[in-house]
C-alpha cells in the first residue's frame, strides 16, 4: 500500500514524515528535476510506504514541485493521501486541500499544530470541519507526536476501503459555482475516458490549462461552449477567470472557517516571533545580526567543532594507515600491492572521510537555521542585493557556505524555493573560494608576492565573487531566461527545531555524501595512484618524471602555455587537483622533490610571477574537487549536465587565467 503526504511548505510535513517513517528513508529526485522525492516504510506496517511530496501551495503546473505532485497523484495513483494542514494558518492551507479533494483519491486531513491553536485560546470544531470537507480530519501535533496513531489508522482504513471524499460542493454559490458544474457535465465523458476526475478537469479547463485541453480532446463545438462559459463567468463575477476561481475557493473556505474555527487573538508562537523579528529583521539590527550569525557558524564549523572532529578523524586514520603499513611490511607483501593499499586505498578513504566532519557540522547549523525559520528571514533581508543578479535572497546562504566548502554548499541548494534558483546557485557556488584552496594561495603568495600578499589574496576572493555575479547575470540572460520565479514567500513563525528532524537530516546528508562520494573520490584517488606508480609499459617507476601521470602532464602542458606556465609539473599538479585542491601542493612537492616549506624557493624556478597569477586564477575557478562533482551529479540528477558544468568550469578557468596572464604582462 502506498500513501502520499501532501501539504504546504512550513506545515510540518517533514516532521510528520519523519515521525511516520523513522530513519528508514529512501531519498532521491523526481525524474528530470531537482525536486526531492522521499520515501519510507510506515512504522509498524512494513507493507505500507509513505511518499513525501514537495511542499506546495497550489496544484497549478507553474513550478516543478506542483507539477510532480499533480502527476504523482494522477499517474502513480497512491492508495491514499494524507493532507497535512497547519491549523494556525488554516485558511491558506485549506486552499490546497480543496484542490486535492478534486483529484478524487482517498484523503485524510491531518490538522497539525493544534496544540498551538489551543495555547492561543483558539479552537477548531473537528467534526464540523470534517463534515464540510467530506473527509476524516485528525488533529495532531507532529512535533510532539500526538494523534499520529489515530491518523495512521484513519489513513490506512480510507486507503484500504478506497473511501473517496464524500461529495461536497467545494465552492461558494455564484457564477463560478454554476460554471464549474456546467463545464463538469460538458466534459464528463471525455474525462472519464482519460481516467481523470471530471470536476478536476473542469476546473483546469476554466483555468485555461493548455495541456488539459489537449488531453481531453474536446471537439470544436465543445471548445466553443467552454469559451462561452468562461466569458459569461468572468462577466458575472466581475473579475477574470484566475481571480474568480481563487476567490470562490477562498470564499468557500471562509464560510467553513466561520462555522468551524474560533481563531486565537494572536498565538503565543506568533507573539514570540514578532518579538524576535524586531531584532532579527529590524531596520538597523537585521543585517549586522545576519553577518554575525554567519561568522559564528563559520567560526564554529572551521575553528571549533569541525576542525576538532577533523583532527580526531585524521589521527585515527593515520594510526590505522600506519598499522596497516606495518602489517603489510611485516607480512612482506609485494611492494606494488602495499603501495596500492597504503597510498591508493587508504589515501582514498582518508580523502572521502576528511570532508565528513565539515559537512556534518555545517549541515547541523544550516538545518537549525532552516528549521527555526531564520533562513526565510535571511531571504527577506538579503533579497534586494541579490535580485540585481537574477537571484533571490535564499541563494545567499549556499553561496556563503561555498567559502567553506563547495560540497555542503551544493547540497544546501536543496532548500531553495525553485528549480531555477537551485540550478543557478549550484553553478555559482564553486566560484566562491573554498577553504581547501587557501593553502595553495598561501604557498604561491609566499613564493612570488611576499609584499603584495594581501592584495593577491583579496583579489582572488573578490574576483571569484565578481565572476559568480557576472556569471549569474549572463546565465540569467541566456540559459535561464524567461523563467523568473515569483518571490512570494511565507515567513513562518519561529519554532524550536526538532532534534529528531535535525538528526535525521544529518544522517541522511552524511550517508548520501558517503555513498555518492565514495565511488567518485575513491576511483579518482586510485586512478591517480595508478598513474603515479606506473609508466606506459606498466612497469613500476622509480623516477616520478617517467610515470603515466607525468606523461599526461606533459601532454597537457602545451594547453597551459598561453597562460604562461608550460612546465609539466604544474599541469600534473592541476590534474591531481581534481581529487582535492590540497593535492595541488603535495603533488608539486613530490614532483620537485621539495618539502612544502621549500616550495617557496622552488616555485619561482618553475614560472614567472605573471604566470603564477594565472595559475592561481585557474586554481580558483576550475572544478573544485571530485567530491564537489559527486555533489553536483547528485543535485543536478544528470551526468551530461554535470559533465557540461565541469567542462564549463575548466573553460572559464582557462579563459580567465589567460586574461590575467596577458594583463599581468602589461605591468
Amino acid at each position, binding site marked *: 500500500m502506498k500513501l502520499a503526504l501532501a501539504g504546504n511548505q512550513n506545515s510540518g510535513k517533514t516532521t510528520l514524515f519523519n515521525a511516520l517513517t523513522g530513519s528508514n528513508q529512501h531519498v532521491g529526485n523526481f525524474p528530470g528535476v531537482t525536486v526531492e522525492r522521499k520515501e519510507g516504510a510506515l512504522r509498524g506496517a512494513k507493507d505500507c510506504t509513505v511518499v513525501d511530496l514537495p511542499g506546495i*501551495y497550489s496544484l497549478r503546473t507553474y513550478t516543478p514541485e506542483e507539477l510532480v505532485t499533480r502527476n504523482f497523484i494522477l499517474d502513480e495513483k497512491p492508495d491514499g493521501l494524507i493532507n497535512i494542514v497547519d491549523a*494556525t*494558518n488554516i485558511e491558506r492551507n485549506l486552499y490546497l486541500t480543496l484542490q486535492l479533494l478534486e483529484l478524487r483519491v482517498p484523503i485524510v486531513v491531518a490538522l497539525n499544530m493544534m496544540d498551538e491553536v489551543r495555547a492561543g485560546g483558539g479552537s477548531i470544531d473537528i467534526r464540523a470541519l470534517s463534515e464540510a470537507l467530506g473527509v476524516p480530519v485528525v488533529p495532531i501535533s507532529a512535533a510532539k507526536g500526538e494523534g499520529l496513531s489515530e491518523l495512521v489508522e484513519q489513513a490506512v482504513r480510507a486507503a484500504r476501503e478506497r473511501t473517496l471524499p464524500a461529495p461536497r460542493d467545494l465552492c461558494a454559490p455564484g457564477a463560478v459555482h454554476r460554471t464549474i458544474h456546467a463545464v463538469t457535465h460538458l466534459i464528463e465523458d471525455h474525462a472519464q475516458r482519460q481516467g481523470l476526475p471530471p470536476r478536476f478537469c473542469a476546473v483546469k479547463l476554466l483555468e485555461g490549462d493548455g495541456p488539459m485541453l489537449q488531453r481531453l480532446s474536446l471537439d470544436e463545438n465543445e471548445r466553443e461552449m467552454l469559451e462561452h462559459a468562461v466569458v459569461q463567468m468572468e462577466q458575472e463575477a466581475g473579475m477574470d477567470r484566475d*481571480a474568480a476561481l481563487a476567490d470562490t475557493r477562498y470564499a468557500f473556505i471562509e464560510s467553513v472557517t466561520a462555522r468551524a474555527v474560533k481563531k486565537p487573538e494572536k498565538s503565543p508562537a506568533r507573539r514570540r516571533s514578532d518579538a524576535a523579528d524586531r531584532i532579527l529583521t529590524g531596520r538597523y539590527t537585521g*543585517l549586522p545580526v545576519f553577518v554575525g550569525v554567519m561568522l559564528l557558524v563559520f567560526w564554529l564549523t572551521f575553528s571549533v567543532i569541525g576542525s576538532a572532529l577533523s583532527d580526531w578523524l585524521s589521527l585515527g586514520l593515520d594510526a590505522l594507515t600506519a598499522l596497516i603499513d606495518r602489517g603489510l611490511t611485516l607480512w612482506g607483501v609485494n611492494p606494488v600491492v602495499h603501495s596500492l593499499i597504503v597510498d591508493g586505498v587508504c589515501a582514498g578513504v582518508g580523502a572521502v572521510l576528511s570532508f565528513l566532519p565539515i559537512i556534518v557540522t555545517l549541515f547541523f547549523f544550516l538545518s537549525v537555521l532552516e528549521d527555526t525559520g531564520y533562513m526565510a528571514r535571511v531571504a527577506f533581508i538579503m533579497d*534586494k*542585493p541579490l535580485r540585481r543578479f537574477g537571484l533571490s535572497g535564499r541563494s545567499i546562504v549556499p553561496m556563503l557556505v561555498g567559502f567553506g566548502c563547495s560540497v555542503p554548499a551544493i547540497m544546501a541548494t536543496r532548500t531553495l524555493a525553485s528549480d531555477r534558483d537551485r540550478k543557478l546557485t549550484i553553478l555559482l557556488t564553486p566560484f566562491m573560494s573554498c577553504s581547501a584552496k587557501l593553502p595553495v594561495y598561501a604557498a604561491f603568495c609566499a613564493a612570488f608576492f611576499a609584499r603584495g600578499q594581501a592584495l593577491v589574496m583579496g583579489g582572488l576572493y573578490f574576483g571569484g565573487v565578481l565572476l559568480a555575479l557576472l556569471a549569474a547575470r549572463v546565465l540569467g540572460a541566456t540559459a535561464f531566461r524567461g523563467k523568473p520565479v515569483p518571490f*512570494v514567500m511565507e515567513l513562518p513563525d519561529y519554532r524550536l527545531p526538532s532534534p529528531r528532524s535535525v538528526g535525521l537530516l544529518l544522517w541522511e546528508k552524511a550517508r548520501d555524501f558517503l555513498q555518492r562520494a565514495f565511488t567518485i573520490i575513491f576511483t579518482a584517488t586510485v586512478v591517480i595512484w595508478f598513474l603515479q606508480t606506473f609508466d606506459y609499459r606498466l612497469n613500476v617507476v622509480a623516477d616520478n618524471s617517467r610515470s603515466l601521470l607525468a606523461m599526461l602532464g606533459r601532454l597537457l602542458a602545451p594547453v597551459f602555455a598561453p597562460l604562461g606556465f608550460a612546465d609539466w609539473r604544474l599541469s600534473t599538479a592541476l590534474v591531481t587537483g581534481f581529487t582535492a585542491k590540497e593535492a595541488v601542493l603535495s603533488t608539486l612537492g613530490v614532483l620537485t622533490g621539495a618539502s612544502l616549506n621549500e616550495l617557496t624557493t622552488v616555485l619561482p624556478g618553475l614560472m614567472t610571477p605573471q604566470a603564477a597569477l594565472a595559475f592561481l586564477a585557474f586554481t580558483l575557478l576550475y572544478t573544485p574537487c571530485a567530491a564537489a562533482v559527486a555533489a553536483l551529479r547528485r543535485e543536478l540528477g544528470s551526468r551530461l549536465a554535470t559533465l557540461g558544468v565541469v567542462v564549463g568550469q575548466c573553460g572559464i578557468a582557462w579563459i580567465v587565467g589567460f586574461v590575467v596572464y596577458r594583463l599581468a604582462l602589461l605591468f
Partner: protein
Amino acid sequence: MKLSELPVGRTAAVTTVGGEGALRLRLLDMGLTPGTRVRVEKVAPLGDPMQIELRGYLLTLRLEDTARIEVEKGKSA
C-alpha cells in the same frame, strides 16, 4: 491606492491583483483575493521587500509586485 504605498502598520482591503503569469497566480493562490484585508507589517532593512499580514500569516513581497496590487483603505471584507 497601491499596496506598495500603504504605510507600515496600516490595514487595507485588496481590490484588484494586477500583474501577469506565474506571479499573479501565486499571489491569488496565497490568498490575496479581492476583499482580503492586508496589513503592512514592516519593510526589509534595505528598503525592499515588504512583509504583510493576511489571513493570519506573514507573507513577503517585493515592492515592484505590491505596486500592482490595488487596495482600499477603510474597506473591510
